[in-house]
């Protein structure tokens, strides 16, 4: 059976595409799936650093497309997680060395080798984006609860719909306290504007910085709120689509409402 190719995109830069790709990839590999994560940011690669694999790279995606090596030679196996492979980007080329038709060919090969392939799309909607979505079966759109990020995500969602790819949304870096004080958009506000299926809500977590700097998978860190959110997203992508999405506002909202009810009576 053929695997799935899923593009992770956002439009805006710096919202956490690479972190999301690495974390979901690791989570699904730990669930026993054969997973490849592909860095599509030709010229500005950093998925290898986030995964702690930068010193093992021999070949890259451009070499595969130019026929200099096989996919198996370019795929770098993760140090800690079996079944997780990275196909790195080239650091010395420009984005237009790859064409959408090259990606369609590559995706065909990847579907045969892996159960899930995640494409880490570069920011923007130019060549790198067009290459990434050309061969994707599904799309994950990452946005943060900021007006600018929502605006760009909206544009990208429009472009994905135009290619008949139905996107699902991950809202990243939610700070429940700021939402509570009205200083940050709530996930309901974001969904009001974007109106797409929600795949997961991820809270702001300091452990993400530690994880990306040291190259240790976030989902392997204990007590990481973001890590466990990504694990649940992984389950939702494979076999458990109805796993409930935890509200990051959590119990607090419940107690607050209850408190308000009591105080009204008194």
């Amino acid at each position, binding site marked *: 059976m053929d695997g799935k190719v899923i593009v992770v995109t956002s439009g805006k830069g710096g919202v956490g595409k690479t972190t999301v790709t690495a974390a979901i990839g690791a989570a699904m590999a730990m669930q026993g799936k054969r997973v490849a994560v592909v860095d599509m940011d030709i010229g500005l690669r950093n998925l290898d650093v986030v995964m702690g694999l930068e010193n093992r790279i021999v070949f890259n995606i451009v070499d595969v497309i130019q026929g200099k090596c096989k996919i198996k030679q370019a795929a770098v196996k993760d140090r800690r997680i079996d079944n997780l492979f990275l196909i790195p980007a080239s650091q010395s080329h420009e984005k237009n060395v790859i064409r959408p038709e090259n990606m369609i060919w590559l995706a065909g090969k990847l579907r045969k080798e892996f159960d899930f392939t995640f494409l880490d799309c570069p920011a923007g909607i130019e060549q790198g984006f067009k290459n990434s979505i050309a061969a994707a079966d599904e799309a994950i759109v990452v946005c943060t609860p900021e*007006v600018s990020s929502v*605006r*760009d995500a*909206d*544009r990208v*969602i*429009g*472009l994905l*719909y135009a290619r008949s790819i139905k996107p699902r949304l991950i809202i990243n870096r939610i700070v429940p306290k700021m939402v509570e004080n009205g200083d940050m958009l709530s996930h309901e506000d974001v969904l009001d*504007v974007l*109106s797409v299926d929600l795949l997961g809500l991820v809270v702001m977590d300091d452990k993400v910085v530690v994880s990306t700097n040291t190259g240790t998978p976030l989902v392997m860190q204990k007590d990481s709120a973001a890590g466990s959110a990504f694990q649940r997203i992984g389950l939702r992508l494979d076999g458990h689509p109805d796993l409930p999405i935890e509200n990051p506002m959590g119990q607090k909202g419940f107690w607050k409402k209850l408190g308000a009810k009591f105080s009204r009576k008194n």
Partner: protein
Amino acid sequence: MKDTENQPVKLKGVGDSLHVAIDPTQSIDTLRQSLSRTFERLKHLAINAKVIIDPGEDADCDGLIDELGQFLKDTFAVGMVSKPQPRKRSDNQERIREQDIGNEWHHYRSEALIIAGRVRSGLNIRAKNHLVILGDLNPGAEVYAGGDILVMGSLLGKAAAGQPDNETAIVMALEFKPTQIQIGGLVAAGITESGASRPEFAYVENNEIVVDDYVKGNPFRQLGWPEVR
């Protein structure tokens, strides 16, 4: 954009005379004050001008018109003050109405572009005439129409009605929070503060884009006969 609610006196130039619409439910002192404010701005233009005072449809306010007329003559030296002439329908208009009622408006073809769904950031829609959106218009989206723009949902993006030069066009939305509005050649920046979400519409008055509550200020309510727009 400015709000027009509770404006007891509205002035516009019609032909060679000044047409003053007044709200007869206000007290005479309020009306006098508003008239003073309006006419002071006209300065010498008011002298010897023909003024028509229009209390609206329902009112029988000859006394009020006489009193205000005398006040304008004394204070601003206007020429003639009269009440509006009962409008006479032309034969042509009468013929059109007969035809409408006989054919139940079947002889008109709709010129509106009606779109269902969400108009997302980066999308541009251009309609030759009127544009109806059954859905929301997101921030970053832009729509242009030769006639009116009606959004049956939230208007959060940019809407340009009456392009290029039709200033009688309106922009209406159930939730009116646009980034920018254009009507004809006029431009107005959106209001950022979030008010109550109620149906509102923008139209042009005195060379300015004005926003008003649609339910209260419905501009078509006064039309005695349903017209094709």
